């Protein structure tokens, strides 16, 4: 009974992920990606990580994906783009990548098979925000610093790349 959400969310995530990579309209793909993220948040919840689940929704689905939507809106893609996208997705294109991904899947699944089953920790008591925070600002404070450096670097480089070169307001080089 308690496994039902997990299975449900997993199935939704898997299906939606496949939908993402096969959509021709960027916004549709984005919406499916949001669905992937939301159902992954559900999976996190089922795995006893409510804090991660909420952050996944707030930051990933709520902020990063909106950024994607925002960019798509700025690009103002039209019908011609959709047609070109369809053209690019000819069946022949998929053979090589599908082969590679399939191999990867097989290899990884083989590895997973070797993992001994976990009987002890089936209780899945949730790990709350407090313990994560204590860990983050205790032994992992250096990685928090590194993450903030990374974000700063991202901020600066995004600002630099997107800067307005000739003051035209359009970003034309």
């Amino acid at each position, binding site marked *: 009974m308690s496994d039902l959400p997990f299975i449900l969310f997993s199935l939704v995530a898997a299906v939606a992920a496949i939908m993402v990579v096969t959509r021709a*309209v960027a*916004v*549709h793909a984005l*919406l499916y990606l*949001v669905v992937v993220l939301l159902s992954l948040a559900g999976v996190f919840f089922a795995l006893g990580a*409510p*804090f991660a*689940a*909420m*952050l996944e*929704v*707030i930051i990933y*689905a*709520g*902020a990063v994906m*909106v*950024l994607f*939507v*925002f960019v*798509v*809106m*700025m690009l*103002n893609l039209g019908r011609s783009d959709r047609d070109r996208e369809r053209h690019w997705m000819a069946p022949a294109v998929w053979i090589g990548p599908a082969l590679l991904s399939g191999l990867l899947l097989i290899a990884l699944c083989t590895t997973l098979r070797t993992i001994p089953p976990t009987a002890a920790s089936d209780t899945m008591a*949730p790990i*709350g*925000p407090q313990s994560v925070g204590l860990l983050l600002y205790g032994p992992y404070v250096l990685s928090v610093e590194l993450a903030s450096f990374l974000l700063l670097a991202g901020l600066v480089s995004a600002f630099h790349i997107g800067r307005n070169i000739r003051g035209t307001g359009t970003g034309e080089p």
Partner: protein
Amino acid sequence: MTAPMPVIIGVTLVVLLGLATFLTWFERRLLGLWQDRYGPNRVGPGGILQAVADGIKILFKQDWIPPFADRGVFVLAPAIGMMTVLLSFGVVPVTAFWSIAGDLNVGLLFVLAMMGMGVYGVVLAGWASNSKYALLGGMRAAAQMISYEVFMGLSVLGVVMQAGSFTMRDIVLAQSGLWFVVPQALGCAVFTLAGIAETHRLPFDLPEGENELGAGFHTEYSGMKFGIFFLAEYAGVVLISALLVTLYLGGWQGPLLPPALWFALKTGALVCLFILLRAALPRPRYDQLMALGWKILLPLSLINIAATGAILLLHAPG
């Protein structure tokens, strides 16, 4: 004392939707009062049935989808907007025993998450309409709501630090001595401003901005889909008010009167405040709105966090 869950859900839903409908009339009446005119006063006693009349009109309108729109997303957008607001109510504790998931251990984060999802309703509506006014409105909404979500999240952190919990019920219980509006006055102010921007109410209704963008993101909407946007906005106002009450004004706590009544009274007063703000304040320019957020509210909320942390550390035992 605890009511069964379906009852809670049902009552909450009915009350909320009824309230949102009622608010459409109530706001116009209050605005009329403040602006020295009548407002709707023909249908029913004092015009109270105006809301019903509007509802009937909207329900019976043709459910029209523009041929140039992206059908699926166009239909989905208002549903997302309404749904996120309703879901947020799930974690608001009306009384100690009356909430759907008031003791969810990441309750406050859940509200923030739903606020974040709420952006999609507006943004997708703007995109799916495939018209430039709607697109501009949607883009404005994306930038505005994402920015103000940051300040909202940062401002409530002070509350979380003081209460030591993300659980809404714990936060209310932590205020039994002193309402957080006193120690967290700064956070409360930022939260209120961010809340107005999140619900894109006047004065921060730039995504709609009717004198520049037509009707903004819902320019192409009509009929019940428009109605859902409309109701979602009022439900959002009630939500922000309820959150303010829960986070800063002691929730259901109060002397003499029953808890639920206290909660309703506080929320109602805040809703009136929202309407008063609409009546009193002009709409700023878009760049002014963003500047206010990033140059004033962000530092303020950071200062609030730092100060709260410092004071908590100083008072920490040992």
